[in-house]
């Protein structure tokens, strides 16, 4: 047993540049969290523990051969879909949305797994087909994406549903979906949007859009979060108010300061300079992932790592855009920085998969 463990350590499949970038983000997270939780040492320690779990999950995922992922993706997809149906039937209510499945000891969100399994499945689907993909397989892939996504929308959890749909769609795009189809798809979405608005959106979702369009119209209620968030960011200025000196967060004007709105805390305390630093860290991680994707050995690995990388950026964009008032408020945490284990572990696992793609390479045959 012990020997086995030691050999595992020795044979760690780690991509050093990527690891450095990720650990830097994790350290930043802990520093910001200590401030965002109002110097709550218990919560900070909890996050440190989660960070270690996340690193472990990453190493674990990295140690598995990408071939394994390709082989078992469909099974994972099937299990997740079944669990999502179960959640809908007997899910627990958390924050007005049914997302958690209580297994006695562990409560978890099947949708979270789907964030990884969805791109894997679609990548596996296209890996067996000649690229660029033609219309029919793309349509089949699209249906495969939208079925579980629809289940998640029903929970209802629009944010996660969008993220999962997007991660799958990135694969279709990378698989070479015809540009005409992309453009006509965009047109269809544009035409469908009003229909969705009038027939399928919950009031609170509509409210978020209203608030996004004009937060000052209701500064004390639905517009409050975004106004306070913009005040926090704006008042940070060039170099910020200093670590632990953010008044918006420490005096609790900023809602959800340690989860979805942690970016506002960071910008308030470290300013525009801090924002550029964080952006550089993210850019470094994304650049390394892009490098790995381009140098991946087969279609499955390319598609999967490429889609995961783009999804990672998408997370950042949605969160930063939301917190700084560019996008409507949707519940998306800032990747690798926000408080909470689920998001960080999932993302780390994704990085683990990318590392696996980077390290499990056959000797190049020339």
């Amino acid at each position: 047993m012990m020997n086995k463990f030691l050999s595992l350590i020795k044979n760690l499949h780690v991509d050093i540049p990527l690891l450095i970038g990720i650990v830097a983000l994790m350290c930043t997270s802990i520093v910001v969290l200590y401030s965002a939780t109002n110097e709550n040492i218990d919560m900070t320690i909890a996050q440190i523990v989660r960070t270690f779990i996340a690193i472990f999950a990453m190493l674990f995922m990295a140690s598995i051969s990408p071939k394994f992922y390709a082989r078992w993706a469909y099974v994972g997809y099937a299990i997740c879909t079944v669990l999502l149906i179960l959640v809908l039937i007997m899910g627990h209510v958390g924050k007005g949305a049914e997302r958690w499945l209580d297994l006695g000891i562990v409560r978890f969100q099947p949708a979270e797994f789907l964030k990884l399994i969805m791109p894997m499945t679609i990548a596996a689907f296209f890996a067996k087909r000649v690229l660029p993909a033609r219309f029919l397989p793309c349509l089949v892939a699209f249906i495969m994406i939208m079925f579980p996504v629809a289940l998640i929308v029903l929970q209802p959890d629009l944010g996660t549903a969008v993220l999962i749909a997007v991660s799958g769609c990135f694969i279709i795009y990378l698989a070479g979906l015809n540009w005409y189809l992309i453009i006509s798809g965009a047109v269809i979405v544009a035409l469908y949007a009003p229909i969705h608005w009038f027939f399928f959106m919950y009031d609170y979702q509509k409210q978020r859009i209203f608030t996004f369009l004009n937060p000052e119209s209701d500064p004390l209620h639905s517009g409050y979060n975004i106004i306070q968030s913009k005040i926090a960011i704006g008042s940070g200025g060039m170099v910020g108010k200093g670590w632990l000196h953010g008044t918006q967060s420490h005096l609790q004007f900023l809602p959800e300061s340690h989860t979805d709105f942690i970016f506002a805390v960071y910008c308030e305390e470290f300013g525009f300079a801090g924002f550029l630093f964080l952006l550089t860290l993210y850019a470094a991680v994304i650049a390394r992932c892009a490098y790995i994707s381009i140098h991946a050995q087969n279609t499955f690995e390319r598609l999967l790592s490429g889609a995961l990388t783009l999804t990672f950026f998408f997370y950042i964009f949605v969160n930063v855009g939301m917190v700084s008032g560019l996008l409507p408020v949707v519940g998306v945490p800032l990747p690798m920085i926000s408080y909470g284990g689920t998001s960080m572990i999932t993302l780390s696992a994704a990085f683990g998969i990318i590392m696996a793609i980077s390290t499990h390479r056959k000797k190049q045959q020339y």
Partner: protein
Amino acid sequence: MTFRFNHDSSKPLQQRVIFRDNIAEANLFKGRIFIAFMVVILMTVALIYNLYDLQIVKYESFSSRSNSNRIKIIPIAPPRGLIYDRYGVLLAENQPLYEIEVIPEDIDRGKTVRNTLQELKALLDLPFEDKDIDLLVEKIRVGKKFKPIVVASKLTEEQIAIFSVNQYDFAGFYVQPKLKRYYPFGSTLTHALGYVARINQKDVEQLEKLNKTLNYAATQDIGKQGVEKFYEDILHGTVGYKKVEVDSTGRVARTIEFATPTPGKDIYLTIDINLQKKAQELLGETKGAIVLLDPNNGEILAFASNPSYDPNMFVRGILSSEYNELLNNPDRPLINRVSQGGYAPASTIKPLMTVMGLNEGLITPKTQFFGGPYYSLPGSSHKFRDWRRWGHGWMDVYRAIEISCDTFFYDLAFKAGIDNINKYMGQFGFGKHSGIDLYEESLANLPSKQWKMGRFKQVWVPGDTVPIGIGQGYWSTTLIQLVRAHAILIQHGKNVIPHLAKNYDEMAPKEFMINNPRKKYEPPKETAVEVNNKGYFDVGMKGMYLVINGPEGTGRRAFAGTKYKAAGKSGTAQIITIKQDQHYNASAIAKEHRDNALFVAFAPYEAPKALVGVILENAGGGSKYAAPIARKMLDAYLLDPDHPQIEISDKKAEKKK
């Protein structure tokens, strides 16, 4: 692309059949990734631009919004200046008053608020009714989480002690000390001292007009009457503030800046509280007023108006039943009888009329006059009676004052005419503000031709002038005007401003309250009455000396056996007109129609130190009723061996220097 076969075929076949152009696929992927990253860079630029806009371009605006979010300024009321009498006896103090407050956030969640309040009621024996408790429960429910709500006020030391011992049972309830004005002498000095009470809507408007709202941000009480009102600016002080950082719920996180309030200045009155007590005591049940001042400088030592009331009622918040009682009391305790009550001056002004007569050359000190039982105008049958039915016979002006002959002064008034009387008596200060440091002052009425025309649309006739000669008719005065006129007489025409506060001339507000007839402070003139010969004043004073020391003097009985030489003048003012064929009979007419008794006296005659004025409503004759009181006041001031000679306040002031 062309080699696609059925998917259902066996695995080995599939692997064999599908050809993949790995390099082409890799290139396709690279192209797609390249385009995707172009989009990623575009989106990143959008994010950077947005953050640049928020943090650099709009920094100032967001920074100030962030500050106004968190910084609150809490004003702190300055402690009000204290008021002492001339010897340093405390007349108005700030007493700590205990209240129990509750901070809703800190309440024990295990108990209902209602039960806790019931327990508190039982513990402290509070006069709560169910309705009060309902109201409090509602207040606590809707109130801000960290804003204290007063549960009980005016708690005794004992209640505080009991509560303190049991505080652990009442989480969220705190004892809060507050400073409340207290007047230890109660009703003794009310009309001079006045009182403070809660700022009301009228005060707020007043403060807004005078631009003082900011200074009163934390102040609860404001001077409403008397010295408390007149010297409000001096007593109030300057507001302080605490700049605090608050969180989103309003809880104070820390204090950023603290500016201590500047306490109001203490004021020393010229009042001698012992003399004041004596005056109030002498008035007893009688409606009336007493003023004693130093004629040399106008310092008022006693200022009594009776009946009085307890000013502390107003400080704690007067009940409407109590206020209605004061308002509807037929004796009208709210009226300041010293400076607001208008009375006919009666014979007390005869020495002043003498000065006018001498200066106008209408009489000389040697002029002889025959005083008959009545006086009639040439060609008129109307009889202006003398107070003595059989008259006084031959007299000079000294005897006229001594015996208070009416016909002498009827004649003098007729000869002088109303214009002259108005001019001279105006110089003596009648019908004008005395300059006293009180807002509660009425001008009374010194009649003139224009006045009568304006008031009655009637021409002034000589018959109107005759009774003016003995201080009757249309003439009314306040006691403070009357006393000031005599002070001017004693000072040989030099102006005297009666006042209640030392350094009144420095402290008097430069801008008076808006609803006051005096809009601006005017420095008093040096000389009040201009005459050709200062000796004319001595004639008036000599007459007053004879009133007390002469063989026929009207005040001789009341002042018999004084150890000092006093001078004075009596006055008996008719309230109703006695018909031509009737005589005045006090016992036959209703109490409220009986004569007002007046007496003005000063002593020592050679170098006057004290001037006292007494008016007793519906008491009867001035020499009989008012004179003894004037004497007792002078006795108390001049003869009391215990009378403190050193002024403590001066000593204190020296020590401070």
